[in-house]
């Protein structure tokens, strides 16, 4: 079943067009990866889906509902949660307070404790550092916190914007493992990545984004094997 659908979306920054006429969809239970170079429009796409940017044309449907004009903080309640690029944690809040902010829009307070346990199971490190300020944590831990915080809203769709950015290779593998695990627990994941290798290997389906448009689409395996994608994004000729 289609969970998220973008139809003919265009986004402008002032007069500059960042995304032109983009259409794609994400089915329930999938991991979908968007890969592309710097400036291809990956983060713009994410911010448009989460509602921080308004598209200049096109429509977005989520769980059968048109959310094109819906405010970002209401989309969270509807089930879209984002771990923003550059982690976007609250540096002056502790791990605990950051996670608590993640559940801000929720009414079902009784289930929050369960989700907290789930986040601690996924990221035991966060439990150890519960009283530490977000701003004083290492990059990897901040990324864990950003993903954990996004999960605290119990989303149907988790948007991950470059979770591997600035992390050590070993840690990148671990983050992707956890992404798969989150997906296995029933959360649909839309992933934006420069690290094409991992992103494609983990994804059910993937899209390649170039200067604001989708140029290739297919399953993760197909794109991994695609010569053009290989040359441009996987560093093999």
């Amino acid at each position, binding site marked *: 079943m289609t969970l998220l659908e973008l139809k003919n979306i265009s986004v402008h920054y002032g007069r500059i067009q960042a995304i032109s006429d983009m259409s794609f969809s994400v089915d329930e239970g999938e991991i979908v990866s968007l890969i592309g170079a710097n400036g291809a429009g990956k983060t713009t796409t994410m911010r448009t889906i*989460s*509602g*921080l940017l308004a598209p200049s044309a096109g429509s977005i449907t989520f769980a059968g509902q048109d959310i094109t004009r819906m*405010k*970002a*903080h209401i989309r*969270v*309640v509807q089930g879209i*949660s*984002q771990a*923003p690029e550059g982690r*976007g*944690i*609250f*540096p*002056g*809040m*502790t791990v*605990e*307070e950051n996670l*608590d*902010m*993640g559940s*801000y*829009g*929720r009414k079902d*307070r009784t289930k*929050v*404790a369960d989700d*907290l*346990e789930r986040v601690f199971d*996924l*990221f*035991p*490190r966060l*439990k*150890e*550092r*519960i*009283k*530490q*300020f977000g701003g*004083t*944590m*290492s*990059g*990897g*831990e901040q990324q864990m916190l950003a993903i954990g*915080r996004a999960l605290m*809203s119990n989303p149907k769709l988790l948007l991950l914007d470059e979770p591997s950015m600035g992390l*050590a290779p*070993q*840690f990148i*593998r*671990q983050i992707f*493992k*956890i992404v798969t695990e989150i997906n296995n627990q029933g959360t649909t994941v839309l992933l934006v990545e420069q690290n094409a*290798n*991992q992103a494609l*290997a983990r994804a059910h389906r993937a899209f390649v984004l170039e200067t604001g448009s989708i140029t290739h689409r297919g399953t993760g395996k197909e794109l991994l094997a695609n010569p053009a994608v290989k040359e441009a994004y996987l560093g093999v000729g």
Partner: protein
Amino acid sequence: MSTTDGPTLIPDDASAQEIADREAKMRQRKGWFPGLSDKWNALPRQTQWLILIVVVVIAYLLPILNPPLITTEPGNNWQIALAQMSVYALVAVGLNVVVGYAGLLDLGYVAFFALGSYTAAMFTSPDSPYVHIPYLWTLPLAMAIAMFFGVVLGVPTLRLRGDYLAIVTLGFGEIVRILATIIPAMKGQVGFQNVGHPPGTDSSGQPIFLNSSGTPWYWLTLTIIIVVLLAAGNLERSRVGRAWIAIREDEDAAEIMGVPTFKYKVWAFAIGASVGGLSGALFAGQVGFVNNQKFDIATSILFVAAVVMGGTGNKVGAVLGGALVAYIPLRFTAIAEFKYLIFGAALVVIMIFRPGGLLPARQSLLAYGRLAYNKLKGAVGDIPPSGKVVLEPGKGADNE
């Protein structure tokens, strides 16, 4: 590519963590009273209340004690100085909601102060041709009018961020002053004499609240400050307070956590404005005279300086900062002329050695909050302490 390594601790990360820990320690060493807030938060609740009560009693006794060295006499009447200091302290508490909690740099806050002053003046002064009401009624009226204009200013401008917002509010501050100059009804430089005061006479038949007697005004304003502080404390610990802190820290992140950021920014603006209006009305009553000369941009900047000096985001710091900003030129009359020069230098020095202000926000701002979180989800309170993190509730997270 290995997929066998489980989600355990990451060796690559340990070194990064060490650096972060060291940085955190460095940050904490800054300041003149290291660990003071930690010590305060570690005290039992009863002890905290006891100390607070003693402080409040001393504050009420200040006009009678007239402590040597601290007093502003012989240069300025000490009781009137206290009254003015208390008004500035109230201004700083109000502005702290906007600048400190929500992180919105409002450089035109004097506009709300002016609106409050003019409300009190135009509804009570014999120079005003309009309806006259008892002075005390002008206090809630001033709050309502300032709040209304806070929303009117906030709704279009709060879509702006950072520097842009600062510039627009700066303009608003000037607009109110200029309107007071050019609208005949507001009487420009001539102003309004004999602004009203609260009722009551003493045994000899003199009104209690004279412009020349500071003590009753000081007590009235101090009482209002305490009420406002209690309300602000409750706000801090509420959902609204948490939303403000999140907005201040990262507005986009707050929005995608489900915080209606725009709504809460307008709230911060409106609440701050109403306190500004209230302090303006008190100021007008105490001084007894209102004209367009007292509401210039320099005053507005002085208000911001008071909040920053005291400790942005800390309501007690704001009281301290506001009182200090009024006190220094009254106490050291020889340097009063150079007060802006001195405040400028003092701000630079404070920003270098104590970037959080005299009483930095963090500990007091969220210490209560942390307890609330623990209560909220009992699960979190029971985490066994790890080597690096201090876990006593309310003691703050220092990495010793």
